[in-house]
């Protein structure tokens, strides 16, 4: 089959690779109909993960049609149209039972690197290196889906592919920021980042009854889109004093909930050199979390800062003093999609949650490298490039 392979820092190519195979009884194979780019791919694309190998297939947000099921798969059959949660989880360990699916004990096949980096291995993810528990990515004609009954969800007939594909990652990540940030009626919510995750966080905050939602970014097209589709106000951080604006718009208190949906890709990281990739050593600055820092400073006393953005390693210049002195709650997670996807698909079916406008560029898989260039450079108003391997 054809797949979009990582070849080295900032280099991608569509190549012929072996078809995926059933490896476990709970696996199924999905023929991909939509597969989206994500901010989480940018550090990988730039070569900032020491574990990504040339030939690895990227992509973790996808929707498709079941073509093969393993003997233990009960909920799906060949022909089902499913959206698959980007996080791989078993559904039967203690973490899964608590709803902490992305922390699943059994979701990653190889875990030594994850254990060494994080202290304990976490769940798996498509389109991420095998050494950290990852599985082959979805920018391909076919994908293997482990624990298919747990991670794949049949899409209601009335929900289009272009809408439902966002239920794979960006929509659950957005919902998580608002729900675990404990957004409620009367709250002022600030969201850093107007990518798909930030915009869907803003939509979730509105649905959860926030009084005022403020989205912060520097790309006017993304900010315009957030205003048009999420009911949020926006701030351009290049043109205005964000802390002062937030103070003014929250009665001097500061926002009750601050969600960071930016991550390392945009926050002062730089690509690793070839030598650094091989040795894992970086002489330059570690990730500098500008948006997290601003969120911590802006947040009202006793409020919550939720970090949705992806950080790949260590972060410096973190304002721990403000966290302590203001009594903040700091939370973060990779999305626990299995917990929210059925509800999100319901909302999509009821037209309460619309996402298709985020797919600004629909391209055949063969144009994957060009799609990533648009997405990475935020060119031509690109918010998400969505690939159609069949087209």
């Amino acid at each position, binding site marked *: 089959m054809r797949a979009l392979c990582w070849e080295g820092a900032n280099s991608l190519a569509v190549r012929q690779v072996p078809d995926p195979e059933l*490896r476990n009884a709970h696996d199924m194979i999905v023929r991909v109909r939509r597969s989206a780019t994500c901010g989480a791919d940018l550090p990988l694309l730039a070569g900032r993960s*020491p574990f990504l190998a040339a*030939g690895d297939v990227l992509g973790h947000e996808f929707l498709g049609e079941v073509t093969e099921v393993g003997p233990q798969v009960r909920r799906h059959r060949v022909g089902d149209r499913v959206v698959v949660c980007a996080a791989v989880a*078993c559904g039967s*360990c203690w973490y899964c039972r608590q709803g902490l699916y992305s922390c699943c004990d059994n979701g990653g*096949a190889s875990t*030594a690197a994850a254990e060494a980096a994080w202290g304990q291995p976490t769940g798996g993810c498509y389109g991420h290196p095998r*050494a950290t528990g990852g599985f082959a990515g979805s920018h391909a004609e076919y994908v293997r889906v482990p624990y298919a009954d747990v991670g794949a969800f049949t899409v209601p007939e009335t929900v289009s592919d272009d809408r439902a594909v966002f239920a794979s990652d960006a929509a659950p990540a957005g919902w998580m920021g608002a729900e675990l940030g404990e957004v409620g009626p009367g709250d002022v919510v600030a969201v850093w980042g107007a990518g798909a995750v930030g915009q869907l966080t803003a939509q979730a905050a509105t649905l959860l009854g926030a009084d005022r939602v403020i989205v912060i970014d520097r790309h006017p097209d993304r900010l315009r889109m957030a205003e048009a589709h999420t009911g949020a106000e926006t701030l351009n951080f290049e043109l205005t004093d964000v802390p002062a604006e937030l103070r003014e718009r929250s009665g001097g208190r500061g926002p009750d909930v601050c969600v960071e949906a930016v991550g390392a890709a945009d926050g002062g990281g730089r690509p690793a050199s070839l030598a650094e990739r091989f040795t*894992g050593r970086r002489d330059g600055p570690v990730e500098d979390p500008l948006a997290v820092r601003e969120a911590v400073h802006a947040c009202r006393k006793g409020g919550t800062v939720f970090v949705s953005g992806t950080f790949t390693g260590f972060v410096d210049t973190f304002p721990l003093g403000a966290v302590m002195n203001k009594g903040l709650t700091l939370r973060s997670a990779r999305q626990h999609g299995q917990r929210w996807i059925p509800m999100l698909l319901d909302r999509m079916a009821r037209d309460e949650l619309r996402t298709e406008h985020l797919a600004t560029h629909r391209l055949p898989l063969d144009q994957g490298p060009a799609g990533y260039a648009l997405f990475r450079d935020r060119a031509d108003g690109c918010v998400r490039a969505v690939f159609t391997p069949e087209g």
Partner: protein
Amino acid sequence: MVRMGRQALAALRTLVVPRRRSRPDADPRPGRWQVVTVDRPAAEVLPGGRWPEPLRPLDGAVELWLRPAPGGRGTELAARPLGGVATLPGMAAHLVGDDPGLFLRDTLRRVKQLVETGEVLRADRSPMDRPAVPG
């Protein structure tokens, strides 16, 4: 067991949070207990008191204990080399390699996966192991 290339291992070392005083790869107590919590009652962890498949090659080389985990979290299953690493017999010593802690944790994890999910999750095969089918 996860096999990683030398480059990946070198990278891994620098990702690891530095531990106090000891090198990250030097456990001062190589014969220490490795423990995993299995989200099931003891009777399901070692059904009929028999060792589950992933542990069988280590029969006679490691000792086990089992106890209920606090807070209704199932069962804690622990293993350590009998008499310390140095005394592991031929095949077991070979299997355990030079990081017995990692090896035992990995084995316990397989037991846990088998009990909790019914199978051991297998990684994708790398394209290098499999020829591409043109088409």
